[in-house]
C-alpha cells in the first residue's frame, strides 16, 4: 500500500494508520434535497466518509450517485455504494466514470438484496456481473485504465475500492475465504455486516489475521446500535444472515421501558472500545439506520473525535 490509489480522505486516514470511523446515510424516498441535507448535517466532521446506499433493501430511492454528489457539495466525503441488481455492465461502467467525474473517490461494491424484499418485487433482476466481478472491474478500470472489454479509458476513474463481508452468514467456514477472494479481486477496504455476536466475529477476524488478510486490506467492523427491543427482534428473525444473540435482546429488555435505545448505544460503545484494540480491525463502520442525528453523540462518547485531518 505505497502510493495513494484514489486520494480519498478515507484512504488517507487508513493509510496514515488512524482508526477509521465511517458513517452511513440512506437517500430520501423522493427528490427531497433538503431532507437529504438534514441527514448529512449531523455527520459533518464526525466520520471519515459516509456510505450512500443504493436502493437499499431493493426500495427505490434517490440514486446513490446523485445523493453522493450532493454530499460532496455539502463537504462530506461519500462512499458511493453500487449494487449489481439494477444495472448491467454498460450502466455500471458508465456510472463509475460519472461518479468519478463528479468528484467521488470511494466506492463500495455489492451484490444487493434481492428485489423480492423491496417495493418493486415484480422487477427484472439484472445480475449481469456479481459483486466479486464488480470489484475486479473497478480495479481494472483504475489500474489498467481499461474497460471490461479491454478498450482504453480516456482518463481512468481512480477510486478507493470497498467491499462487504458478512461473517455471520453461512457456510461460516467459507466466509474468510470469500473475504480473501474479494481482497484478491481488488478490494482496498472491507466493511462488515452489523456485528452483534462478538465471539463469532472474533473467530472470523482471527482467521483473517492468520491468513494475513488484514495486511492487504483495511477491515472496518460494522456497528449498528439497536434502537429498541423491537428492532433487535426484527433483525434476529427477519434479516437473513444477521446474528443477534439472545443475551443482547435480554440486555435491551432489562434496560426497562424507554431505555433500550440508550442500552443499545452503550453496547455499541463497548463494541467500539473492543474493536480499537482488536488485531486486524482498522476501524468502525457505524450504520446508525435512520438515526443519523445520534452520530455526533456516539462519536463523542466513543472517543473517536476529532477526526484526523490528513
Amino acid at each position, binding site marked *: 500500500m505505497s502510493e495513494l490509489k484514489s486520494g480519498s480522505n478515507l484512504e488517507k486516514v487508513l493509510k496514515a494508520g488512524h482508526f477509521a470511523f465511517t458513517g452511513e446515510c440512506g437517500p430520501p424516498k423522493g427528490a427531497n434535497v433538503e431532507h437529504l441535507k438534514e441527514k448529512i448535517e449531523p455527520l459533518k466532521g464526525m466520520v471519515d466518509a459516509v456510505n450512500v446506499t443504493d436502493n437499499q433493501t431493493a426500495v427505490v430511492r434517490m440514486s446513490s450517485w446523485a445523493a453522493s454528489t450532493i454530499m460532496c457539495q455539502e463537504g462530506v466525503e461519500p462512499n458511493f455504494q453500487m449494487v*449489481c*441488481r439494477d444495472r448491467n*455492465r454498460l450502466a455500471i461502467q458508465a456510472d463509475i466514470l460519472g461518479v468519478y467525474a463528479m468528484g467521488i473517490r470511494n466506492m463500495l461494491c455489492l*451484490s*444487493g*438484496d*434481492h428485489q*423480492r*424484499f423491496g417495493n418493486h418485487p415484480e422487477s427484472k*433482476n439484472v*445480475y*449481469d*456481473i*456479481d*459483486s*466479486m*466481478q464488480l470489484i*475486479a*472491474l473497478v480495479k481494472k478500470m483504475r489500474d489498467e485504465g481499461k474497460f*471490461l472489454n479491454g478498450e482504453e479509458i480516456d482518463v481512468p476513474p481512480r477510486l478507493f475500492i470497498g467491499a*462487504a*463481508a*458478512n461473517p455471520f*452468514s*453461512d*457456510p461460516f*467456514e*467459507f466466509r474468510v*475465504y*470469500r473475504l*480473501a*477472494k474479494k481482497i*484478491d*479481486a481488488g478490494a482496498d477496504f472491507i466493511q462488515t*455486516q452489523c456485528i452483534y455476536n462478538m465471539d463469532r466475529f472474533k473467530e472470523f477476524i482471527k482467521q483473517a489475521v492468520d491468513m494475513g488478510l488484514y495486511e492487504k486490506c483495511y477491515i472496518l467492523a460494522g456497528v449498528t446500535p439497536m434502537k429498541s427491543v423491537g428492532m433487535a427482534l426484527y433483525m434476529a428473525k427477519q434479516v*437473513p*444472515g444477521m446474528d443477534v444473540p439472545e443475551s443482547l435482546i435480554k440486555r435491551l429488555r432489562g434496560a426497562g421501558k424507554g431505555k433500550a435505545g440508550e442500552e443499545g448505544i452503550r453496547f455499541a460503545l463497548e463494541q467500539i472500545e473492543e474493536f480499537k484494540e482488536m488485531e486486524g480491525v482498522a476501524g468502525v463502520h457505524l450504520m446508525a439506520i435512520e438515526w443519523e442525528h445520534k452520530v455526533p453523540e456516539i462519536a463523542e462518547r466513543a472517543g473517536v473525535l476529532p477526526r484526523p485531518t490528513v
Partner: protein
Amino acid sequence: MIVADRKPLKEILEMLDGCNRVLIVGCKGCVSVCNVGGSKEVGILASILKIAGKKNGLDIEVDEKTLERQCDPEYVDQIKDVVADYDVILSMACGVGPQFLSERYPENRCLPAVNTTFFGGAVQHGIWEERCAGCGTCGIHHFGGLCPIARCSKSLLNGPCGGSADGKCEISKDVDCIWDMIVKKAMEQGRLDDLLKFKPAKNWSTARDGGPRTSVREELVQ
C-alpha cells in the same frame, strides 16, 4: 424437461370468450411427464370447459387431440384436416407448442393453456424444481455439477452472498441456497481450491441476452 403449470380456469375462460368450437391439443412430451398437458389433462380440461360452458349457458363444443409432440412440424401437421372446424386451438404444450401451431395454421387462433415455467425435473412425486436456465454455455463443472445461474437467486458466479443462512436463500426459507450446496460439496470432496478461483464476468451472448437463438446441425440439414 420443460415444466409448466396449467393456467387458472378463469384466465382460460376469458381467453375463450366468444368462442364456440374449441380444439384442445395436448402434447405427449415434457408436459405429459409433468402432468400438465398430456392426454389425461386434456380430457380433464375439456370436461371442465364443457361444464363451465353449460353453467354459463354457452354453446361451447370442445374436442380433444394429443399429439406426439408439438415442437415438430411432422406432428403438428397431423391436425391439418380438422383445424378449419374450430374457432380456437387451445394448446396444452409448453410455450413452443402454441407457437408452432400458430405458424403452421395462420388462419386459426392458437392460445396457450399453460404457463411454461422452467427446465427442471421431479424431485419427488408432484414436485418439480428448476435446474437450468439455458444459458448456452454450460459451466457447471466449475461448481461441482450444480448450476448457480439457474439456481442462485442472483446468478452469482462467486457466491455465496451474505444472505445465505442455514442452507437457505435470502429470498425465502423455502428456497435452498445453491451456493451453500456448492461450497459444502467442494469441502467434502476436498476441492475448495476450485471455488477460490475468481470466476470472471460471464459472456451472456449465448444466452437469451444475445437475441433469439438458432441451433444448426449441418449434417442433418437437407
